[in-house]
């Protein structure tokens, strides 16, 4: 599980949109995985199992947090969301992050699993718990939206 941690954390930060929220999500995932470790079946992929736990937690619990945040920050402040606090100063919110955060959660997780984590469609669909065709179409909508946003952005702030 320790070896998986960097990848899990990458997925968490991508989903949650900031290192702080990502680490919180990662922590909840590890807690849940440890308490449910007897549910993991020997011989199945531990990474897929943990990614599934993480996305379920994110869908269940992350939503409320995100909605709260979106309600209380205005458009300009929104640019700085995720970079609050001095310890995160080195992590600037880039266009890629803004574009990712503009995606609906189902598209964002599909994009992250396939395009960042490198899962095959079938594996990603199993993690998400949807048919492969559904994953494929979410992925296409997500990446089309990303292409639109990023094409409009000047190169130097990407």
């Amino acid at each position: 599980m320790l070896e998986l941690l960097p990848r899990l954390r990458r997925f968490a930060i991508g989903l949650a949109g900031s290192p702080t929220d990502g680490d919180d999500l990662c922590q909840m995932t590890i807690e849940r995985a440890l308490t449910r470790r007897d549910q993991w079946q020997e011989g199945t992929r531990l990474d897929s199992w943990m990614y599934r736990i993480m996305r379920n937690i994110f869908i269940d619990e992350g939503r409320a947090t995100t909605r709260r945040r979106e309600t209380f920050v205005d458009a300009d402040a929104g640019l700085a969301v995720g970079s609050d606090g001095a310890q995160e100063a080195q992590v600037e919110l880039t266009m890629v992050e803004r574009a990712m955060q503009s995606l609906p959660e189902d598209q964002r997780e599909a994009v992250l699993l396939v395009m960042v984590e490198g899962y095959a469609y079938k594996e990603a669909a199993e993690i998400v718990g949807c048919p492969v065709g559904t994953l494929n179409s979410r992925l296409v909508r997500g990446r089309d939206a990303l292409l639109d946003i990023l094409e409009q952005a000047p190169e130097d702030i990407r």
Partner: protein
Amino acid sequence: MSVTEEMIAAYADGELTGDARAQVEAAVAADPALARKVEAHRALKAQLGAHFAPVLDEPMPDRLSSMLRAESPAEAEVVSFAKEREKRGLVPAVRRWGIYIGPAMAAAVIAAVVVMPSGAGPDPIPTNGTVGPQLAAALDTQLVGDAVDAGDHRILLSFTNADSRYCRVYRSNRAGGIACREEQGWQIEQEMLLGEGQSTEFRQAGSEGDLLAAAQDMAVGAALDAEQEAEARANGWR
């Protein structure tokens, strides 16, 4: 059948095989716009990959990695002693005393995990520097790593101080301290509460780390190894 957006993306991701793949290949070859789309998909994948890749090389936040180290209590304790001292800008005690603390601590910690009942009431905490009978017996006879009953004092470490007196670090469920053998008997030099009953192993380990750090500050030379400790006991700690 026309080539869908889904198929283009799947093709760019290397997901298509057989007929479907051949079909998209043919369409892409015939239509520069489709070829550009495939390129755009691949470029986006490379961009996202490059964007998130640095996360893999970032130092893992301790609160995350420590959760997994806790799976092996002895290891977690030893690691957190070192961390505790690092936080204070001190040389990790474990590195200097590791060969003595390591095996003994491993045994002691495992014993602690096994014998400490959750929800046990607080055991008597000496507050006036006097040594109760159970503690005195532990100080006199117990060696580091010996198994003890729940709630009883355990010896964590033995060392000699600047006055060439033998000193011993001990703890019970909720408190611990350092006692040194003076002419008239054991004298408590330091004592502290160690976490709450409900606290995690980490916080307790941290407090135990405080205790060991204090011991290291008092100690002259390394901690006693098992042989030296047995010899000291045989000589009545004088």
